[in-house]
């Protein structure tokens, strides 16, 4: 990866992670607010592939865990897996699909929401399913609305999709 692109991704990630924990997390309309960090991670994963998505997710999660004084590694785990999946989706079936940002954002929001619930429950933390279900629809709508604007913004900063890891050979079946 171009070092300049790496620096840009790091800067975007850091700024968005800080804004997420200090500003966006306090927004609650209809019970929930936007997870701009997740939408940004989805955009980066779609544009730069699975490895960048996973690394980006790990670092983003680490920043969130440190800033919120939470259990270190918990958000990292969720966002690493999400970044990796989104990156693979972008490299394969989501490649050049116009609906890819929206679909990936919706799936990532659902996965992270319920994944977080499961991990917290496994760690023995008391979590209320109701709290998730109350906030979930609003967060899903927020993230879906932000999917395309954030994707375009991120693409402007980090450049178009990376083609290096994609299939270059196809078999003509007709």
């Amino acid at each position, binding site marked *: 990866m171009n070092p300049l692109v790496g620096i840009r991704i790091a800067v975007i990630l850091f700024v968005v992670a800080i804004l997420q*924990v*200090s500003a966006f997390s*306090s927004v609650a309309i209809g019970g929930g607010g936007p997870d701009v960090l997740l939408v940004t991670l989805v955009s980066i994963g779609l544009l730069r592939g699975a490895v960048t998505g996973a690394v980006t997710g790990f670092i983003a999660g680490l920043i969130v865990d440190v800033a919120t004084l939470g259990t270190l*590694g918990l958000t990292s*785990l969720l966002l690493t897996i999400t970044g990796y999946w989104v990156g693979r989706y972008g490299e394969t079936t989501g490649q050049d699909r116009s609906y890819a940002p929206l679909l990936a954002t919706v799936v990532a929001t659902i996965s992270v929401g319920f994944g977080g619930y499961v991990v917290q429950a496994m760690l023995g933390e008391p979590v209320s399913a109701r709290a998730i279900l109350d906030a979930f629809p609003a967060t899903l709508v927020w993230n879906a609305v932000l999917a395309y604007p954030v994707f375009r913004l991120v693409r402007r900063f980090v450049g178009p999709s990376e083609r290096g890891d994609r299939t270059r050979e196809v078999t*003509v079946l007709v």
Partner: protein
Amino acid sequence: MLGVRVQRPASGKPPSRSASALRRRIVVGLLVVFALVLITFSFRTPDSGPVASAERAAAGALRPFAIAGERVAQPFRDVFGWADSLLSARSDTKRLQAENEALRQQVIQNQFAANDNDKLKALLAFRDGPRFPDDYTGLAAAVIARPTERFVQDVVVAVGSNDGVALDAPVVTADGFLGRVTRVYARSSRVTLLSDEQFAVSALDVRSGATGIVKHGRASASTLIFDRVPKKLKVSIGDTIVTAGWRSSKLASLYPKGIPIGRVTSVGQADTDLWKQVQVESFAGFDRVDAVLVLVLKDDKK
């Protein structure tokens, strides 16, 4: 023609797909393992050890950025809060006017009662536990971070052990009781809100003296339950619930007596239940906390 291989035009040399896939899997595997190791260390030794030290140092480094982010967001939050309050301004005004009239009467009666109370205490040489707010110093702090998961009822505030904050210190807002400090770093602390599932506080009904435990409710974040109130005691809608601040021979409540918690919104009881079913609407809005007061006991009361 079936099965004919066609090369896509590519600007560079294509990488080996198997090597690329292997590298990809190794990277994600290492990251997942590393995250699991961090979770294990952080969960087992949250306040000591190398991971906790690293987290503490990193939290200190991130603090200025979190404060900057909070300051950038504050005007937008104010505008949002202003717009939101406009919707309920008319009904709020009527309610507050009625409340103001009732409170004015109550203040006069309370002043007489307080004077009598002081005189009687002096006559009896009555010894009492720490009282809120007289025996405490409030450390004002901004909320600088909130968890991204909605089910986690914690916030991070911009004061820490350097400012005198101790573990389990009570935290209030201008409206009422908010929670307690559950993790302390040098310049920041984590506050667990009363709406957290593992949190409860002993409380009493100011009017009737009925005691019980206030804990999170199921309906919404700001709705609490006044639990363990015997059915023979009287609790009415509109009653104010405050912290009980009990003290026994060896143990004492973490929270001083008299911090307002909320107002009773519904009371019920069933024949099969041991306790009353009392719902309380919290005075402190857990959803939108921007600033808090961390209570520190004054030196002469320690």
